[in-house]
């Protein structure tokens, strides 16, 4: 296995994650969003597994496995069920239209490359490429969070952001496993808490539309 082949595959996998991020951004049907997210998680797990291979660090396989099982299968399935139960598997409304969102996304990708590429010789090319993709995925995830109104899609945006984090973390050579655990741990907690909140929010508001929450801002009634 040559260095360049390893590089190419890593590049391909990371690139596909980025592309999927774009698709997420573009996709406006909630079920499709969940499916695309599952796809991205799979791409992530492949990427992590590949990193485990070329870095000779088998513990990364655990991370890949977690990514595949939790993010690729469990969470999307769970979210599908929630969505169906809430009866919101209809179209989701964008806050800003797709065109500007896409353009912003492109700009963010350019920014990521601009930021990471000029980094000096101390960091290897592979790591740099990885980092650029990861940064772009993170920024796109954030962008998705702010362009969507629906709590479920926001969660997806956030998890896509986490995917970027994992990509970056695995790209960093020899980062101690403790971090992996913490990532998994935090995602787990994140999910549980999310679940609790979504549950509670449903219980109280019969909707997970976050904008409906906002009317309960403490001082709203007394404005002016």
């Amino acid at each position: 296995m040559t260095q360049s082949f390893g590089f190419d595959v890593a590049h391909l996998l990371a690139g596909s994650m980025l592309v999927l991020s774009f698709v997420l951004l573009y996709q406006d049907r909630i079920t499709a969003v969940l499916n695309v997210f599952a796809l991205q998680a799979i791409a992530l797990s492949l990427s992590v597994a590949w990193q485990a291979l070329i870095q000779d660090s088998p513990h990364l396989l655990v991370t890949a496995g977690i990514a595949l099982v939790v993010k690729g299968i469990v969470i999307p399935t769970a979210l599908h069920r929630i969505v169906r139960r809430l009866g919101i598997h209809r179209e989701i409304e964008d806050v800003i239209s797709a065109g500007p969102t896409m353009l912003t996304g492109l700009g963010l990708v350019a920014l990521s490359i601009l930021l990471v590429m000029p980094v000096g010789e101390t960091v290897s090319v592979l790591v740099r490429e990885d980092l650029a993709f990861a940064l772009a995925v993170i920024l796109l995830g954030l962008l998705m969070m702010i362009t969507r109104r629906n709590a479920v899609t926001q969660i997806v945006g956030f998890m896509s952001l986490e995917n970027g984090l994992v990509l970056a973390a695995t790209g960093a050579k020899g980062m101690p496993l403790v971090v992996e655990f913490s990532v998994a741990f935090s995602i787990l907690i994140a999910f549980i808490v999310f679940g609790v909140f979504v549950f509670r929010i449903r219980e109280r508001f019969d909707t997970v539309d976050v904008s409906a929450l906002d009317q309960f801002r403490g001082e709203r009634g007394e404005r002016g």
Partner: protein
Amino acid sequence: MISPLHAILLIPAIAVVVLALIPGYRIGAILNMLASGLTFMAGVALLVVPRYRSDVLIIDDFNIYLVILTTFVAFTTSIFSASYIGHELETGRLTPTFLRFYHALYQAMIGAMNVALVANNIGLLWVGVEVATLSTVMMVGIYRTPAAVEAAWKYFILGSVGIALAFFGTILVYLVAQEVLGEGLQAMAWDLMVQASPKFDPKLLSLAFVFLLVGYGTKVGLAPFHAWLPDAHSEGPTPISAVLSGLLLNVALYALLRFKIILAANPATLNVGLIMVVLGLISLVFAAFMLYRRRDIKRLFAYSSIEHMGIITFAFGMGGPLANFAGLLHMTMHSLTKSAIFFAVGHIAQVKGTQRLADIKGLSTSHPVLAVGLALGVIAIAGLPPFGVFTSEFMLVSSSFARQPWLAVVLVFGLIVAFGALILRLQDVLFGEASGPAGEVKATYVPLFLHLALVLMAGLWLPEPVVRWFRAVAAQLG
């Protein structure tokens, strides 16, 4: 023999489990106090044992006083909480089940903050901050009113994004460090990084700091990342507000400063001081103006916390021995004063049965002692002598005016605007005809006046070791 360092981590950990299992809320409250007290004693014991470092944990000049401060405020807050929370049960805002939950989470938060403080591993530092954040999220939502849920939700979403960004920054720092220090744990050890920092890639390090700044800055409550803070303070139980303002913000800032030290040791990095100065000033001025339109007493002081975090960030952004010293002192003073204020506010909210400023009048007539406590707290936090906040503001304003007059003018402007708002509200609360019920204060005054006494003491005299630590850290901060 367990060393104090382990004790401050273990006691809360054990307490979490025990408190989660014990049903009675009275015992829970007492155990909570006991655990906090023991942790505090362990924290004080750090003074007498030799300094310690490993790749995972460290005790140095910077965190030793913060550990003591944190455990101290956690202890006093637990005392306050023990007498406070009973009333909440009476009014039916909480149920015993939730109190169990509450006490366990309280210890979890203290433990997590201690972890963050004593961590030498930047990953562990991150974990500590995150766990502390998540446990407070739960506590903020504990009343389960729509407003509380909404506050917790907002806190959670913004906090999670902060978590993620800070984590990315941490990865970047590791990436930079592993090229010099080699892979593995040592590449995440903070003290080794500081030593090796001049060899680090300055560009990536700067990029990392931006992410850390936004990530931890969200926890610090710097504008414009502050949005969670006012609601979280006003909707949660008051002891949590006290701990949030008094401790969690400090811990997040502490995390940021650890990275600032790494950057300060590498002269080729971006001048992050300027960014911090700008963010600090934005927070200060913004929060100062926000103070004027507040109707909720706890939200008022939450904004004041943003304001003070702005001042502290400004101080560290300015850098130099005096400004850094001032920043460290201000962190300490703010944490003591603000928690004292929240104690007072908690009492007020309980006796008056409301948090609405418009319904709280003439406190000096109905509850003179409480009024004095609140007045002293607000006067201290507004930066008036002879309290410790004035000492730090004195050093900060005077030294920065000699160096960067325009920045200092903005700083002074913000201070005056904030001062005007705080005094305006204070007078409204204290004076005039008393409104609302005039019942006795049931909770204890001890924590309130203990904190105020310490702040007063610091305004007149600082103990020698504290000065030494501050100086050492100030030198490191560059």
